[in-house]
């Protein structure tokens, strides 16, 4: 994450000990190199490099458990201890910065004995059988036990659970019997996401990870992002898994079971089948879903395009009301609303800014509403017999589809939210070897999607998709003439907070679709469109605080917020493990898919044109579209009732 030093970071709520390390630097020592000998291999590393990083740079493996690339250092599990010359005690390799020439030994008798003891101690408090665990074969504790040849429980093994499982949340289930107190979830929640739902309580052997007043997760300010799940080394945190219900719906001949697939799972699901990150399996997955028994397989990108139209038009309407009508009640900048983790975050932390949040539903929820109305009518199916499943990279989508307001079709718009991991499990259960399957297209009538829908999966993608359409709609200039190949590079990339400006130097005629809403765009001539992008709620907090203080983001017109690092591709429902490199590989897969599309702009999607001709006849942001495609929010605040 950030490399800001603890001394400078007045912003973080994380204790200094849990923030990135501040390396003491001697005068003139900054940027210098220091030599270190690890297991008799000599290497020069930048001053302040940890022993762990130095060892990794020369291919020496030091086992870790509480360490995670995305998180600040804790140094609590002590699995990574090594011998450092001149030090009386063993040192945690993850937490020890090299500031002077040093000799390190990584597997002496003392080290091996200590690691073995530590693993034995962790197992003595880890309740549960590997067979019945969601993380079987993908568990860091299990791997360590294997690596260190644990052949019996030297210090015992619990035979009874100590804690009740908290399954109150639609998104995240906590089984503290499996917790090894590595505190990755605590660091994820506080330091990475700036939410702070989880904290260690009590002392010594009574220590455990707890919510505020030990309340169920559903009753605290959890935003359901599931980033803690992705970083839990064991099965102590897992997503609320609806696969049994989905199978039951498939097995029920009276049900018409539809699945929509979001752009991110397809870029990552291969990881669950042993492929390197970054190998997209979009069309193989379509085949697998049909083999599993889903009646229709649709692409969420279709409603991503619909979201762009609705949200983009909403933005133009807000701008017109603010700039032309001088209506003081209009809230700008407009915030995106497609990340349900972000929506819950703003409901809790900045409820006073809810009017800024676009009222457009997320693509997932738009799809559900369209399926149970437009599609049901078109195919003469009783919507009560339709089961809508959404394949998402996200755990918060499970909460979103259970929001009481998400029933505008007269039914629950989306019945089940399925994560990438859960679908991989279903595919395996069906005996399917996903990477070896042939390719199948998406089903009609929503088979056509655009590259704009695909890039919703990456941070900056919603903004790029919106700009591609807004620029063309307003200026009449093809976006390719402004940005080569329609790649709007300034809004791409993994930088935590991004800002971009675009001057509108020409306006074109109002397209037919919007004739009912605008007579011309002359009022935008000469204006500079200012946009912001951020991902991870810690970065969202930075942007929100900047807005509160009247900084440059308060002058923006449109800001994209994503709750998860890297955007949806780093979502809480994606394959485990995660790291910056893995997320970058997934992003490359997503942008490659975008490039391959012939239609890359939402407003040019022929199925979008068709749905506005046939169903939402009054156009975007009209009465019917407001009823089915828009929603409202709940100011929740941070204070939890007794």
């Amino acid at each position, binding site marked *: 994450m950030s490399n800001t030093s603890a*001394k400078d970071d007045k912003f973080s709520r994380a204790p200094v*000990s849990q923030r990135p390390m501040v390396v003491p630097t001697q005068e003139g020592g900054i940027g210098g190199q220091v030599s270190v000998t690890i297991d008799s291999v000599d290497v020069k590393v930048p001053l302040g490099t940890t022993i762990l990083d130095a060892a990794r740079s020369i291919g020496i493996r030091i086992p870790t458990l509480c360490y995670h690339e995305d998180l600040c250092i804790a*140094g609590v599990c*002590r*699995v990574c201890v090594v011998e450092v010359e001149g030090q009386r005690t063993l040192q945690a390799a993850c937490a*020890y910065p090299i500031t002077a020439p040093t000799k390190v030994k990584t597997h002496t008798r003392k080290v091996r004995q200590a690691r073995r*003891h530590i693993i034995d*101690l962790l197992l003595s408090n880890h309740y549960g059988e590997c067979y019945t665990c969601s993380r079987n074969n993908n568990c860091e504790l299990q791997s360590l036990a294997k690596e260190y040849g644990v052949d019996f429980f030297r210090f015992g093994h619990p035979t009874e659970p100590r804690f009740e499982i908290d399954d109150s949340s639609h998104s995240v289930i906590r089984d503290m019997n499996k917790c090894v*107190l590595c505190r990755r979830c605590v660091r994820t929640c506080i330091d990475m996401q700036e939410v702070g739902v989880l904290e260690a309580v009590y*002392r010594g052997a009574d220590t455990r990870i707890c919510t505020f007043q030990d309340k169920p997760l559903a009753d605290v300010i959890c935003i359901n992002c599931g980033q803690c799940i992705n970083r839990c080394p064991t099965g102590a945190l897992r997503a609320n898994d609806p696969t049994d219900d989905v199978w039951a719906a498939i097995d029920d001949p009276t049900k018409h079971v539809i699945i929509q697939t979001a752009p991110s799972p397809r870029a990552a699901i291969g990881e669950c089948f042993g492929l390197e990150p970054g190998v997209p399996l979009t069309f193989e997955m379509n085949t697998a879903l049909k083999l599993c028994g889903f009646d229709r397989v649709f692409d969420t990108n279709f409603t991503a395009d619909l979201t762009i139209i609705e949200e983009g038009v909403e933005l133009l309407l807000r701008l017109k009301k603010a700039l032309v009508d001088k209506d003081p009640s209009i809230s700008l900048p407009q915030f995106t609303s497609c990340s349900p983790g972000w929506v819950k975050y703003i409901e809790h932390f900045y409820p006073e800014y809810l009017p800024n949040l676009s009222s457009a539903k997320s693509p997932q929820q738009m799809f559900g509403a369209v399926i149970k109305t437009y599609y049901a009518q078109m195919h003469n199916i009783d919507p009560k017999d339709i089961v809508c499943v959404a394949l998402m990279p996200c755990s918060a989508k499970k909460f979103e589809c259970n929001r009481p307001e998400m029933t505008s079709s007269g039914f629950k718009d989306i019945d089940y939210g399925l994560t990438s991991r859960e679908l991989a499990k279903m595919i395996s259960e069906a005996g399917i070897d996903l990477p070896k399957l042939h390719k199948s297209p998406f089903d009609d009538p929503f088979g056509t999607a655009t590259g704009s829908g695909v890039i919703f999966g990456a941070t900056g993608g919603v903004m790029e998709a919106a700009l591609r359409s807004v620029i063309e709609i307003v200026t009449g200039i093809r976006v390719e003439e402004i940005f080569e190949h329609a790649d709007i590079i300034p809004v791409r990339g993994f930088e935590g907070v991004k800002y971009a400006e675009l001057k509108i130097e020409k306006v074109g005629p109002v397209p037919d679709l919007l004739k009912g809403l605008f007579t011309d765009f002359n009022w935008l001539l000469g204006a500079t469109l200012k946009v912001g992008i951020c991902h991870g709620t810690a970065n969202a907090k930075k942007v929100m605080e900047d807005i509160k203080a009247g900084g440059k983001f308060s002058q923006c017109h449109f800001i994209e917020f994503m709750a998860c690092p890297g955007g949806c591709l780093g979502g809480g429902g994606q394959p485990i493990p995660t790291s910056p490199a893995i997320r970058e590989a997934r992003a490359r897969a997503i942008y490659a898919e975008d490039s391959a599309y012939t239609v890359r702009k939402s407003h040019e999607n022929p199925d979008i044109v068709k749905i506005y001709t046939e169903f939402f006849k009054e156009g975007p942001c009209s009465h019917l579209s407001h009823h089915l495609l828009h929603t409202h929010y709940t100011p929740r605040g941070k204070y939890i009732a007794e």
Partner: protein
Amino acid sequence: MKAKNASKLTFSTITPNAGLTAAADKSRSDIIGEISASKMKGRGGAGFPTGTKWNLAAAARGNQKYVVCNADEGEPGTFKDRVILLDHADLVFEGMTIAGKAIGSSIGIVYLRGEYTYLVPHLEAILARRREEKLLGKSIMGRNGFDFDIHLHMGSGAYVCGEETALIESLEGHRGEPRNRPPYPVDTGYMGEPTIVNNVETFAWAACIMSKGADWFKAIGTDKSTGLKLFSVSGDCAYPGVYEFPMGITVRKLLESVGAADAKAVQIGGASGHCIPAPEFDRTIAYEDIATGGSIIVFGQGRDMLQIARNFMEFFVEESCGQCTPCRDGNVKLLEGIEMLEMGECSMSYLRELESLGETMQLASKCGLGQSSPNAFLSIVKNFKEEIMGRLP
């Protein structure tokens, strides 16, 4: 409670504020030079050279440096800091003020043990008087730019907060848990700023050294362990109380002085210290032999050593902060081992396993608490193996 020999402490003989007066006209490096020359090591027990610590903090870059007095006297069997704060608080505050001048800090904080809340009015009164006497506040003793003030901060009862980095976390309002070191507090301490954390007694001796000179201090004790040291003596002895002895005194001589010549064993350094059996009473109390913060608990001939080990292990199971694996879970296993020994159900091979676990805890725990928590268990197992293995099932 006032210890009967408190009035005999060297502290009583020191001219008030003579050390501060001497320091007020000295340069920072001269003050640190004097402390370094005395070769005083920290009186909290870890034995880090005080002059070196001050020098590192003085050299560190920061916006606001801090002087913290560790008055979280929580080690079982130690109560000498309480006596110092009752009878010689002026000397402690004087030492802190000297430290402030030495490292370039204007803020001192006394982190006071929660159980010592009753001392607050007494200490606040002394601080108020010192402010009136221009010994604290702006322009101390009329010296422009010599600004320093002290406030009290109450601890909340966690033993681990005596560990300096846990103490700093607690000061910042967080859960009291030790930090990773490095970086050390002298570079990145309270609020991320350079901070020195010294024991109550260390500050008092620092004031004495500035008053009487490094040579006076250095002449007492051994070459590696200079000066005088206060001891809290309790347990099976005729005259419990606070004592002052030169460093390097033998265990035997100390026990004779307190009326415990026939002791079976003595716990030196509190729960985290070592249990010394009678055959080793000729060893010396010094950083180079048996280091201690001053807790001396005497065990008479009738004491059950397994009960003593159980008492200490129960303490550590309760007081481990729960952060790192070896300490959080290891102490529980050692206590369970003692319960097995009590029932005569611990095999020799499992006892060896526990001894090896104790070694892991000493080596791999994150802070001094976990690193020293198996000491009592290990020394009792080593020195009294026949007694503790002798239980019948």
